[in-house]
């Protein structure tokens, strides 16, 4: 291809988020000529490191790495691409108003709560057994039913066999708890509200659910299974953006080209087949296959257009639940605030403000009525403790996920941004009295901000709510659940696909496999 010739690629990947980059890398390794088109000035999508105050950098959306399969990272040679972990096996600590913070590490638990420590050990063991059985569900492409394909049948049979092989007790337990709400499950097994609150966080983080919502055991199991049952929270050196840089390196090394500041305006269709894209600049680029890492609504309703789709399918896409409820708070700190009763090791890890499931449920109640939580739930990290390069010497960054902050706030985010920022800071300040004194500046990203900055319709991390009706065989919607929509040559590879969001990369890899298999 020359500058003068009409550019043409085997595959165009729309969006250079982590899933787009993973997909591009696998496609290029499969021998395809690949062009990644990223709208922003840097790749990474929601896995980026950004300067949010002079000299202060932070993982601007996702802030921990725990779901990306090790096999995928090894296959793509991410360490050879320069990816280093500043910290791994980060501990989790549940903050308590009375200063009796609870470490979820086995030793800490056994000392504080002997009975719960035993129950927690049992739950972890069960979780690992179930996760091992369900793990393939989260790594493989979901089968398409009703096609009579042997591949689909075999895939379902394998899943059934794996569940059956759990043995009678575990299988019954899985089927019993699968549809429950997480609070009932936690009440069955544990006594300490603080422990239950911390575990409930994992079930509802980034979702439109409270601990009393049906399906929250599923989201908890999902998180456990996706993480392989391990508590393997990690923090890349240089923030999540470093992961994206490494992924881009892997894609480029395999032969893919990446263009930033190249927003795609439309996906071109000719003879009922995707044939390329038009950039916002008007430039047309032809390709045999277009793979979109954008969310399903943006892809189908925005870039493709409903005139190329059937009305029923269009309605299913339009009805996807995509409203985000998680806000992101970034604090630039002149010095490290003092958290009394918290040792430095704990401060390096993940801090949770969710003293009980009821606390989270009350926080969620507001969201149901279009308000933000009066007492929000937070997941906090201070990444500069493990990675001082993110801030000027001696200074620090605090990064927190704050829930619940509904996308459609009744009184509008314009008017409420400052009060929610103050509320979130004060909620943390209750555990670090000098936080306000350390504060240099603060940034709050509400779901509408996330929608705008990361180009995710609704500002939902997972692109579409993780719930049974938008999961596995039917994610994002029936008719597009196997990384391929109704228009030939157009594939999906973003978090809106199975297995969903979080910085996982599996959707990108599975989509690439599907393209390589079907468009061979």
């Amino acid at each position, binding site marked *: 291809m020359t500058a003068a010739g009409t550019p043409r690629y085997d595959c165009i990947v729309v969006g250079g988020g982590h899933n787009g980059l993973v997909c591009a890398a696998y496609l290029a390794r499969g021998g395809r000529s690949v062009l990644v088109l990223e709208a922003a000035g840097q790749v990474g999508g929601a896995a980026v490191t950004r300067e949010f105050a002079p000299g202060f950098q932070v993982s601007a959306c996702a802030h921990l790495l725990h779901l990306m399969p090790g096999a995928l990272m090894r296959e793509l040679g991410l360490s050879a691409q320069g990816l280093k972990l500043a910290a791994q096996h980060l501990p989790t600590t549940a903050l308590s108003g009375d200063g009796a913070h609870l470490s979820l590490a086995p030793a800490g638990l056994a000392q504080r709560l002997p009975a719960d420590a035993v129950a927690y050990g049992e739950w972890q063991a069960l979780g690992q057994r179930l996760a091992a059985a369900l793990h393939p569900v989260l790594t493989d492409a979901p089968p398409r039913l009703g096609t009579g394909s042997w591949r689909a049948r075999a895939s379902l049979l394998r899943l059934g066999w794996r569940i059956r092989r759990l043995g009678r007790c575990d299988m019954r337990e899985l089927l019993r708890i699968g549809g429950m709400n997480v609070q009932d499950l936690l009440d069955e097994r544990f006594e300490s509200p603080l422990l239950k609150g911390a575990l409930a966080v994992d079930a509802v983080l980034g979702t439109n659910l409270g601990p009393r919502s049906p399906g929250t055991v599923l989201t908890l199991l999902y998180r456990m299974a996706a993480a392989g049952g391990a508590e393997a929270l990690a923090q890349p050196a240089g923030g999540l953006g470093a992961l994206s840089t490494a992924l881009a390196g892997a894609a480029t090394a395999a032969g893919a080209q990446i263009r930033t500041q190249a927003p795609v305006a439309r996906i071109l269709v000719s003879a009922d087949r995707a044939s390329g894209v038009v950039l916002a600049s008007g430039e047309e680029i032809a390709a045999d296959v277009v793979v979109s890492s954008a969310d399903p609504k943006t892809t189908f309703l925005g870039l493709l*257009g409903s005139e*190329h789709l*059937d*009305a*029923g399918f*269009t309605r299913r896409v*339009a009805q996807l639940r995509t409203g985000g409820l998680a806000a992101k708070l970034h604090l630039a700190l002149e010095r490290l605030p003092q958290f009394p009763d918290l040792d430095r090791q704990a401060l390096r890890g993940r801090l949770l403000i969710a003293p009980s499931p009821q606390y989270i449920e009350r926080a969620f109640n507001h969201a149901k009525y279009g308000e933000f939580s009066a007492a929000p739930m937070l997941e906090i990290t201070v990444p500069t403790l493990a990675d001082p390069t993110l801030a000027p010497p001696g200074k620090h960054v605090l990064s927190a996920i704050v829930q619940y902050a509904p996308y459609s706030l009744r009184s509008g985010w314009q008017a409420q941004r400052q009060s929610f920022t103050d509320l979130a800071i004060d909620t943390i300040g209750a555990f670090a009295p000098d936080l306000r004194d350390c504060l240099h500046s603060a940034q709050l990203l509400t779901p509408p901000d996330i929608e705008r900055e990361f180009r995710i319709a609704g500002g939902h991390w997972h692109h579409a709510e993780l719930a049974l009706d938008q999961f596995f065989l039917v994610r994002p919607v029936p*008719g597009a659940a196997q990384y391929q929509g109704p228009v030939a040559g157009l594939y999906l590879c973003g978090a809106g696909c199975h297995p969903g969001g979080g910085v996982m990369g599996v959707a990108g890899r599975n989509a690439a496999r599907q393209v390589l298999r079907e468009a061979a």
Partner: protein
Amino acid sequence: MLTESEPHFRQPLLKTPFHERARALSQVDSFVAWSGYSTVDVFTTVEQEYFAIRNSTSVYDLTPMVKYRIVGAGALRFLNRLMTRDMRNLAPGKVAYSVWCDDSGHLIDDGTVFCLAVNEYRLCTAERQLDWLCASAIGFDVEIAEVTEEVAALALQGPTSCALLQALGFDGVERLKPFELRQFAMPPAALPVMVSRTGFTGDLGYELWMQPADAEGVWDALMEAGRTRGIRPIGSRALNIARIEAGFLLPNLDFISAGHTLRIGTERSPLELGLGWLVDFGKGHFTGRRALLEEQRRGPARLLVGLDIEGNKPAHNTLLYADRAGMKQVGSVTSATWSPTTKRNLALAMLDAPHFAMGAAVWAEIYLNRELTWQRRMARARVVERPFYAPARRRATPPADF
């Protein structure tokens, strides 16, 4: 129309603007519910009314037809994606008959689209469609509103209908070609009436569209001008005979809307209903196109055909067999009538492949009621061309004067 005096639950059926006139002319007090309205099934006798359609002029109240106003810069693109037919050829002043399907290529309904102006349409359907129209409108710059109660409508069908309208002062109505429409001001009060050369009888005829307030005035003028041209109000029963002769389909008799079927396999595609001529695969995407292409590739498993059955007993609710012994069922009748004009025993029937081939013979199992003594008769039936009856006058422009 609801009146103020009675709460809605005391008048479960609406009355059309022609209701008082119709009630005054009804001799047998036979009314039926149609789309939430009370309408006439029979005024006098079915036969008398049927022959008005074929020999003079019939008036039929079609106000209950569900009507939608479709406007907006994206109205044409919306309709073209909704309908199986290419709507880009539908210019202002034209009408098109079309069908629309769900994603699986199964028929939702059929109807007529009136192009009133560029990007301004009226869609007339048998069943309510707002939900599907709204789903289809996602992504299109279009506004859709149901206007059923805002538009009163009469079908004026029969060989003397054109002469009658001319006598009433509809100047130039004789130049209207089939599937054309025009606005008229009906003398002497210049009542605005839209006339389209459309109908459900397969005969010469027109449909008149007006404001409900003008409805009785138009009715009275038609009756007065029609006295010497054999005008007669008709009910649904007479119309049903004419529409079978014309080979037209009726929802819930000849097919069930895919939006209403409960059992898998009871939906019907336009290809199965013999409406393949309405499906334009070359016009770009429309809902159901991919499924219909696949069905076309496979070939239809069944087809709605016209049957000519021996004898004179209408084959109502009749099963069809490949053999006289009735061992192998190959289909069933959806609509049947004795055709007074063609003097044939006609039916529309759904037949399994390969029995639907033109000229193919099947056996119809007809039950006869001989003064409460039931008999079963196996009648020979043959697949024949539709329409069964198509007089030249239905297309003649200008039509003959009377």
